[in-house]
């Protein structure tokens, strides 16, 4: 089966070509079948390849399928080929699997949209690019996929381009990504010049070989890895290039689920993990990766606390979770990073699709203040949403618990207490804002406008079915990486050939009791976050009437503890809230956005000023030549 891995990206490409060129001439159903079928076939091939890979012994689990020789010139040779190893195997399963589910969901969500064929052709093109990215066996091919997903992201964010905000958001995503790509391409050139090859296997081999001989300095490795990281920062929306991601929510919700939660944004993490050998040789870069990851994790989480747009909460949450993954990579726990990438793909896709289902039912309304009490109307959406939220909050036995705990544990043992502290605080915030979202949306009194309330309904089967699958995955997804018990941490074993042992971190032995203790701590943290959200959004707002008539006891408890709430509010909640508000409105909008927009604005203004020099007079043109001459003369003297 391994010989056929080239089929995996091929199917979506065919789907794209058919829908792109003939989409308007064939019926909507056919378009849907072609698009879903293409990705479905990819998924089947991916699963079969995965099984074949498992049958090999762990040391031999690297398979390269060379398609053709791309460039063969002098000492430089590049082959286009696909590489299947444990790392890319996990990625293709996630991309094609979650992609397939989201494709199905989209057939329901986008059903009434005029641009149906266009949407699916973009979606297939995206899947193709993403699969190319993760299957590539060299940096250049990876870069092609990298640019491809960026382009599709742009097309899909700006899908409803009639809305100015949407097309602006698309443009912003593209430009910010290009800034990241700038680092990436420079890194590839540096690799090309340093190693004389761009093939993963050869580069990594040369890197681990040559560094012992001291031919390539640590500075070079640091430069390469930092430049690569610039690319990752752009694609994976880390500080300071994250601003495009919240804006990207202008796109259709399934797009947010596929691109801006499950797949594309994780490309940066994948790339860092793929280049783990290079990163391990550059300690400074590792520190930077961990630092940026931790900072982003806490920063984005704190912003997520005060958002009222349901999708923006999830967007900031994604940024924050990506920060976690980088934190893991930065402390050398690449396995934990990839593990979290996988579980995150499940539960975040589920959350996004769930929010899409809510938005669908609400007729396009995204403001949580105008929701509430929806669980009665849409039970399936509600339950899947709760499961995914428990997973992201880190409650056992849901998937997120295992991966997040692994990261926190590695941050503590391989990093330092500060990184752990930041991670733990971010975990607390995560639990809080997720349940704040649930309580505001599904619980409590309905604040839905009457017009909308009449049409409230559960979404159709082709939308809820994907939710159920993803929720199921969010439950069981973590069981592949159960810590402590020997032999149960399958994912760690599976990935260790790629990360050459250093990802596993088995070398450092800590007492089991400490690990168990830390596990308890993270559970407590998550529960505390949920509890606080419950207090603030369920108990506090409706205190007087509702609770009085329903729960006498609860009412009394609330009444007695009323002042505590006030104190909570004054001491903890309000400062956090204000701080977060400041971060969001002040720093985020003014500083970060301002810099990106400002740079674009400056260039544009400069352009307008400079063109005046181009006066149209022959005399001035001749004069400019003379000035050039004089300058060159002066230079030569």
């Amino acid at each position, binding site marked *: 089966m391994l010989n056929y891995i080239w089929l995996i990206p091929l199917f979506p490409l065919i789907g794209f070509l058919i829908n792109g*060129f003939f989409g308007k001439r064939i019926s909507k159903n056919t378009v849907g079948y072609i698009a879903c079928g293409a990705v479905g076939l990819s998924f089947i091939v991916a699963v079969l390849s995965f099984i074949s890979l498992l049958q090999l012994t762990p040391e031999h689990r690297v398979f390269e399928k060379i398609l*053709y*020789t*791309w*460039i*063969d*010139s*002098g000492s430089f040779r590049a082959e286009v080929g696909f590489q299947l190893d444990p790392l890319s195997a996990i990625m293709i399963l996630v991309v094609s699997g979650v992609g397939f589910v989201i494709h199905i969901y989209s057939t329901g969500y986008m059903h009434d949209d005029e641009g149906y064929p266009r949407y699916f052709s973009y979606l297939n093109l995206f899947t193709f690019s993403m699969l190319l990215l993760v299957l590539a066996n060299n940096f*250049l091919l990876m*870069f*092609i996929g990298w*640019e*491809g997903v960026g*382009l599709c992201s742009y*097309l899909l964010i*700006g899908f409803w*381009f*009639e809305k100015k905000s949407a*097309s602006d958001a698309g*443009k912003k995503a*593209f*430009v910010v990504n*290009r*800034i990241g*790509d*700038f680092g990436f*391409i*420079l890194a*590839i*050139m*540096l690799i*090309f*010049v340093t190693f004389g090859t761009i093939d993963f296997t050869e580069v990594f081999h040369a890197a681990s070989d040559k560094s012992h001989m001291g031919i390539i300095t640590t500075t070079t490795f640091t430069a390469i890895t930092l430049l690569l990281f610039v690319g990752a920062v752009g694609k994976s929306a880390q500080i300071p290039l994250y601003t495009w991601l919240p804006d990207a929510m202008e796109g259709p919700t399934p797009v947010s689920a596929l691109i801006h939660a499950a797949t594309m944004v994780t490309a940066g993490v994948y790339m860092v993990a793929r280049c783990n050998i290079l990163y391990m040789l550059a300690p400074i870069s590792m520190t930077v990766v961990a630092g940026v990851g931790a900072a982003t994790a806490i920063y984005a989480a704190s912003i997520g606390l005060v958002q009222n747009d349901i999708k923006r909460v999830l967007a900031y949450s994604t940024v924050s979770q990506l920060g976690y993954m980088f934190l893991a990579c930065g402390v050398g726990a690449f396995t934990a990073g990839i593990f979290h990438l996988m579980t995150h793909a499940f539960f975040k896709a589920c959350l996004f699709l769930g929010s899409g289902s809510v938005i669908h039912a609400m007729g396009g309304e995204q403001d949580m203040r105008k929701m509430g009490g929806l669980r009665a109307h849409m039970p399936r959406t509600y339950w899947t949403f709760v499961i995914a939220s428990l997973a992201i909050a880190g409650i056992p036995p849901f998937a997120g618990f295992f991966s997040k705990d692994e990261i926190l544990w590695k941050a503590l043992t391989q990093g330092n207490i500060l990184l752990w502290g930041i991670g733990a605080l971010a975990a607390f915030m995560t639990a809080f804002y997720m349940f704040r979202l649930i309580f505001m949306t599904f619980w409590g009194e309905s604040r839905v406008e009457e017009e909308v309330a009449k049409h409230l309904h559960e979404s159709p089967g082709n939308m809820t079915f994907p939710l159920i699958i993803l929720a199921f995955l969010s439950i069981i997804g973590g069981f592949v990486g159960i810590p402590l018990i020997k032999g149960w941490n399958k994912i760690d074993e599976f990935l260790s050939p790629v990360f050459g042992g250093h990802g596993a971190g088995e070398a450092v032995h800590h007492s089991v009791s400490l690990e168990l203790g830390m596990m308890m701590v993270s559970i407590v943290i998550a529960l505390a976050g949920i509890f606080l959200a419950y207090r603030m959004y369920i108990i506090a707002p409706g205190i007087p009437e509702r609770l009085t008539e329903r729960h006498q006891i609860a009412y009394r408890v609330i009444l007695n503890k009323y002042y505590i709430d006030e104190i909570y509010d004054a001491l903890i909640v309000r400062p956090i809230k204000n701080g977060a508000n400041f971060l969001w409105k002040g720093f985020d909008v003014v500083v970060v956005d301002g810099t990106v927009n400002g740079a*674009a604005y400056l*260039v*544009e203004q*400069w*352009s*307008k000023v*400079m*063109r005046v020099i*181009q006066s*149209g007079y*022959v005399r*001035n*043109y*001749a004069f*400019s*030549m003379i*000035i*050039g*001459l004089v300058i*060159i*003369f002066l*230079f*030569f*003297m």
Partner: protein
Amino acid sequence: MEIIAPPIDLTGIMPMIIIAITGILVLIIDLFLKERSKNILIFISLTGVIIAARVSFSQYGGIHYSFHRTFVMDTFSVFFNLIFLLGTALTILISANYIKREEINHGEYYALILFATMGMMLMAGGSDLITIFLGLEIMSISLYILAGFRRTKKESNEAALKYFLLGAFATGFLLYGIAILYGVAGSTNLKDIAASIPGRLFDQKPLLLMGMALLIIGLGFKVASVPFHMWTPDVYEGAPTSITAFMSAGPKAAAFAVFFRIFIDSLGNMEPNWNVIIGIMAVLTMTVGNVLAIAQDNIKRMLAYSSIAHAGYILVALVAANSLGFTSVLFYMLAYTLMNMGAFAIIIILGNKGEEHLNISDYAGLGFKRPLIAFAMSVFMFSMAGIPPMAGFIGKFYIFSAAIKAGYIGLAIIGVINSVISVFYYLRITVIMYMREPVREFNPISLSPLIILALIISVWGTLHLGILPGTIIEFARKSTFAFF
């Protein structure tokens, strides 16, 4: 006194002879043709170009001097010849309909294009300053006329006049530079100049530097590098669109061929003196080209600035002055010819008689009305912006890698930043095509089988060079053996 007849060896200049004869044939046959049968001229010209390309290709490999070492046929010049001939063939294909539409369907049009092509081939193969100068002038004078070929249009007149005055002005500098170089070296032959430089370096250095500075101006003008670029936007805008396409490909490549040959072959020993100045020019050229392109609304003018920016990238490779850099330039010139020709072909297609629709906003909604044309345009724009998997990406990747390899990391960084800036305006076209409601009907558009052929060649070439660049890169690399 005995007169020894010099040995005449025509093999080296065979492709040029074929092109020249074709040009003259076109001129003569045109006299006997009625207006409606002028299509014959297209086929005569194309046949000539194809034969010349075939002959030129068969001469690939080895170095062959002729005419007392004033002309050389080496792999480098053959590769450039093929680029010129490709550019010429595409120009003829996209011109056919355009010159009929604009009522400038005169036989001289093709003849002049062919003569200009001959000039370029003389430039690329010139190994003596005399031949190079002659080639340059044959090319330039033909272009002055072609730029003003739409005699009734004020813009075209103005373009021709500006091009002519500034071009002649630049020729003055170039010639002065050549004269001084001749005085210092005692010869106009490139190899002899190179041989004489180390000895004279110390006693006549100021004079040599002065000559070099003047050469930089003369050639800098032809390749449109800042600050000698000012003519480009005006001339590109005013000239007939097909000629703009022609000018941006072949003549520019020819000027680069000369630039490279003189500065590496003859003045290679002076590299420490010129690399900084060319490096600064490269930075300025990229930056000014890209920044000014952003503010343009006229698509031809935008492409003019974009061609300035591309000249900047190629100068980076000259500064790198290594085998990788030369390979990249050959590859890039080929890629640029294809994608640029394609973009201009689309501009021609979308124009109507009397109304050329050159404003960028005229492209609104093209993606919905004419998906295939819009797709082709996107391919060209992405390629120019250097987005994989198009040809432009591979070209840029090689150029900047060459700069890094030669140790000019700063130059490579500035180059990559510039290609980020360039995405702004290339993307703008795509955005307008796909994300704006159409403001006009795209009917009728001037599609003819010939222009469709040109488009297919350019789209295919742009994609092929991006996805399967291997053969061409190897070909280009072998073509640099003349130098390294």
